[in-house]
């Protein structure tokens, strides 16, 4: 097992590396030894039954949840080190949640502008220009002055993506971002993510959209009860799953 505080044993070109990550909530073990490497520009999808620890995994990667054991390195920073600079980490990793969690008292544009101004202390005018550009990127030009409560779920989710992008992260994580949306708006959000991936953004997606995972992922990880059961290119994992647990899960969802 790798020692904490160094980058020992983790390959150089991975943007996100996990080694034997363990996490329990009380007596329940939620992550039971997860290892994975995500290279720059990779798009990986994590699939698996409810409660298998997918959300917890993403939350460990940006230190919203502390791990019990193991090592996580993101963009050269050891997340599991006690001296971790959380702000520096969160500049590198963006996360978008299922419940978009926009700040309801601010307009769409302000939502995108807030963190760069408050957290990064960047110049307001520069940030506004960036924010307008990002609103165009997620195809929401014209909605800048709307409050979250005035936007559809899909529109809110795209604002949430723009808000994360405004921090100029190296890795974007998406936690079932389409699960709360109606089918109409799912497509808009998936389009946004697809375009991001095509631009070369490193993406980690937890998703129930198997069709999308198959289309977009470089690699798919199947998790069950806190461990990675198997992983591989989508063609292999969806086409000829090796483990019976994977097969059973896929039969259920496909």
């Amino acid at each position, binding site marked *: 097992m790798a020692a904490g505080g160094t980058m020992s044993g983790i390959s150089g070109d991975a943007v996100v590396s996990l080694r034997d990550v363990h996490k329990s909530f009380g007596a329940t073990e939620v992550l039971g030894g997860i290892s994975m490497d995500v290279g720059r520009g990779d798009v990986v999808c994590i699939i698996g039954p409810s409660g298998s620890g997918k959300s917890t995994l993403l939350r460990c990667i*940006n230190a*919203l949840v502390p791990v019990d054991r193991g090592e996580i390195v993101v963009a050269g920073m050891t997340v599991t080190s006690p001296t971790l600079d959380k702000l520096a980490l*969160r500049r590198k990793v*963006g996360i978008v*949640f299922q419940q978009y*969690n926009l*700040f309801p008292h601010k307009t769409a544009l302000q939502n995108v502008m807030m963190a760069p101004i408050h957290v990064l202390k960047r110049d307001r005018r520069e940030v506004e220009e960036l924010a307008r550009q990002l609103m165009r990127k997620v195809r929401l030009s014209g909605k800048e002055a709307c409050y979250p*409560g005035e*936007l559809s779920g899909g529109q809110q989710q795209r604002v949430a993506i723009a808000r994360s992008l405004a*921090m100029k992260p190296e890795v974007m994580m998406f936690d079932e971002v389409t699960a709360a949306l109606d089918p109409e708006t799912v497509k808009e959000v998936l389009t946004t993510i697809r375009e991001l991936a095509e631009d070369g953004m490193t993406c980690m997606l937890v998703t129930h959209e198997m069709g999308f995972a198959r289309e977009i992922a470089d690699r798919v990880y199947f998790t069950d009860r806190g461990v990675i059961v198997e992983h591989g290119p989508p063609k292999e994992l969806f086409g000829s799953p090796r483990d019976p647990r994977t097969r059973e899960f896929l039969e259920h969802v496909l």
Partner: protein
Amino acid sequence: MVAEWFRQLKESANVNLTIFYDRFDGLTYLNGLATTVKLSAACLALSVVFGIGGAWLQRSGWAPLRWLVNGYVAFFRNTPPLAQLYFFYFGVGSIMPLIPDGAGGTHRLFDNFQWAVISMSLFAGAFNVEIFRAGIEAVPKATTDAAEALGYSRFGAYIHIVLPLAFRISLPALNNNLVTMVKGTTIAYAIGVPELLTASATIWNASTNIPEMMNVLMITFLALVGILVVAMHRIERALHIPGYNR
């Protein structure tokens, strides 16, 4: 001319509103009004500061700080406000050091007006702590998670996200408490602060027009509270978020 009309009113209908024609009573009452307004404004501002500060400290990671706030809230919520006023003015006030006034004499660190502000702000502030606490707890964890994931510190998230939302959620309860507080400023009568009740009593004792002054006092408070309610309503409307209803 107005004074003349009220003098006539006394002669013809035996309604003796001295404050409108007697210069001394008029000034006494105006001074009472000004004092009540100042007292209310000071308590309003301070009690909101105590409420916000207390609610913040209550979430501190350091247990003794939380106990301190909880103790403060329990003490001021569960003891009579009049007893608290006496406690400060006669109790704490008497053991405070006297300040030399430079002319050979001494004076107290705080006068009765200031003690009234301190005591009543702490009292209303204890309720405000609870009100803001409820508002903060009503802000979804998911919202603070999002702030944290964007790199906000706990304090930064409190200032920019939690507090603005919690404040809006708290407004109706805060309105009630502030109205109660303004009405409650009359207890300052007990330590001789020349506020409206004290002024009215001075006037009706001298001019023996108790029924008239009672009515004037009540109407004045109705107007004061009415102004406060309208102002709070304006704030509520100004802070309304389009499309946001909870």
